[in-house]
């Protein structure tokens, strides 16, 4: 999947696939173009899976936007709390899944496109965002009201800035890995989003069907972690083989 053009050029030079036991620990910096391409099958494997919730799904409360009528007016019907979204068969959305061990010391080229966080209808879109260390984060405000974007980063530098409705985008870059850093708007207390910042491209966020997929992972042994803002973190060890697809599932429950 996400190997770098530079790496591929190198591969082409040697005319052969990188061996899984290749001593190369660094994939090298990306060329200026930095385009990300999916590695061809035969070199890498992938991980697929689902996040599930066990037990009775908590009720999704109505989001009370009473304190700001301007926000309330943006919704035809009541918005619902996004922190726990469970499907009919227990599929759990908004779980951040990433390779937490096994990629140490390797470097991966950065995507040139920035990660994007928007504020729409006084909610954050997306509710959980994954991005890379060093990648630019662009924060937009599509609402007609002023928000403030307040990160509660523990490892990275925290920031707190106000943003006028329809005003200029804010930009941030994080220089350390930090999974699920809370970013919220203090003016509208219900607005909360979580950003997972990782040093490599192997992460995903579960969709409404609870599914995720992390392709293009070089063969090897890894620890795969999944974190939900309410239900905490789960880990599992996986072994990726060439062309292999590892299937895994995370099951969360209320403490």
């Amino acid at each position, binding site marked *: 999947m996400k190997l770098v053009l530079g790496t591929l050029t190198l591969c082409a030079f040697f005319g052969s696939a990188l061996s899984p036991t290749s001593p190369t620990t660094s994939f090298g910096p990306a060329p200026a173009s930095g385009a990300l391409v999916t590695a061809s099958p035969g070199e890498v494997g992938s991980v697929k899976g689902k996040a599930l919730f066990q037990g009775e799904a908590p009720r999704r*409360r109505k989001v009370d936007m*009473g304190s700001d009528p301007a926000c309330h007016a943006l919704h035809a019907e009541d918005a619902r709390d*996004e922190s*726990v979204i469970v499907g009919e068969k227990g599929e759990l959305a908004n779980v951040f899944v990433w390779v937490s061990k096994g990629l140490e010391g390797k470097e991966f080229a950065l995507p040139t496109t920035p990660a994007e966080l928007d504020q729409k209808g006084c909610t954050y879109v997306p509710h959980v965002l994954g991005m890379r260390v060093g990648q630019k984060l662009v924060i937009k405000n599509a609402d007609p009201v002023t928000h403030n974007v307040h990160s509660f980063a523990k490892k990275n530098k925290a920031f707190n800035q106000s943003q006028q409705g329809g005003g200029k985008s804010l930009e941030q870059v994080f220089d350390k890995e930090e999974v699920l850093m809370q970013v*919220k708007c*203090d003016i509208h*207390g219900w607005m909360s989003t979580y950003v997972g910042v990782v040093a490599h491209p192997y992460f995903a966020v579960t969709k409404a069907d609870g599914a995720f997929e992390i392709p293009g992972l070089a063969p090897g042994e890894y620890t795969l972690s999944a974190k939900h803002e309410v239900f905490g973190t789960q880990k599992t060890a996986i072994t990726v083989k060439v062309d292999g697809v590892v299937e895994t599932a995370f099951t969360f429950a209320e403490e």
Partner: protein
Amino acid sequence: MTVHPSSAAPAGRGSAPLLAGLFVATAVLVAYGFWSLGGLPELASRHGVSIDATITYLFVTTGILFLLGHGVLTLFVLRYAGSAERAAPERGSPHASSKLEWRWALVPVLVMCVIAEGGVLIVGMPAFAQLYGEAPPDSFVVEVVGKQFEWLVHYPGPDGVFGRSEAKLVNDARNPIGLDKKDPAAKDDIYTRGQMHLPVGRGALIRLRALDVLHSFTVPQFRVKQDLIPGFLGRTQFEPTRTGQYELACAELCGLGHYRMRGFITVESQEEVDQWLSEQEPAF
């Protein structure tokens, strides 16, 4: 050392009317402004009557002193303006007249004792007693939790008991006031973001709590203002006397969203309040 004739001092009498005019204008405009521009928002609480009475009392008394002071200043500026014709000012050592000075010093002391201290004690006290005395036993009790930058309004629910809450349970989206699910009294509690409904004509006792920094609970029409201090359970009380919707504002600087910290207080009949409460989603 000889006394030099002044090179800079003589200045025309022409300044006297100018300055006198300025002071008259100041007096008239300031007083007129207080009279006409400085209207308080329409009163909507019971104890506010005494507060307004105290303000009116101060209006009148300080107004008289203000006009009197400016009047004398103006007169003196006109009367004692130096002129070429009057060769020397009237002579007389001030210390010969020190009795006069003491007498004049007594005047403001007495006036201020009567006007100011009297005002504080006689006119002001009743309002203070209503604000800080015992709450009427049948008061409608609500809790307000201030946080950057929201008013979270917490009702005890049908059981009339506020559930336990704890800082570490606070979650902005799911449990903003940190109610403890395990406390049975908390189950039926109701909380809203900035929506408070109060019955008209019944004492309201507001419990005040802050989660992060100082805030201040202010409704100008009710003439109430009370700080919320993190770590302390404060309170304020008042009796709304007019139905309608009022804005709840924050008066203590609390951060960049201070100016947006708005809540709404709807004053309506007891039945309407009960009806509204029954429509709200319970905490758990």
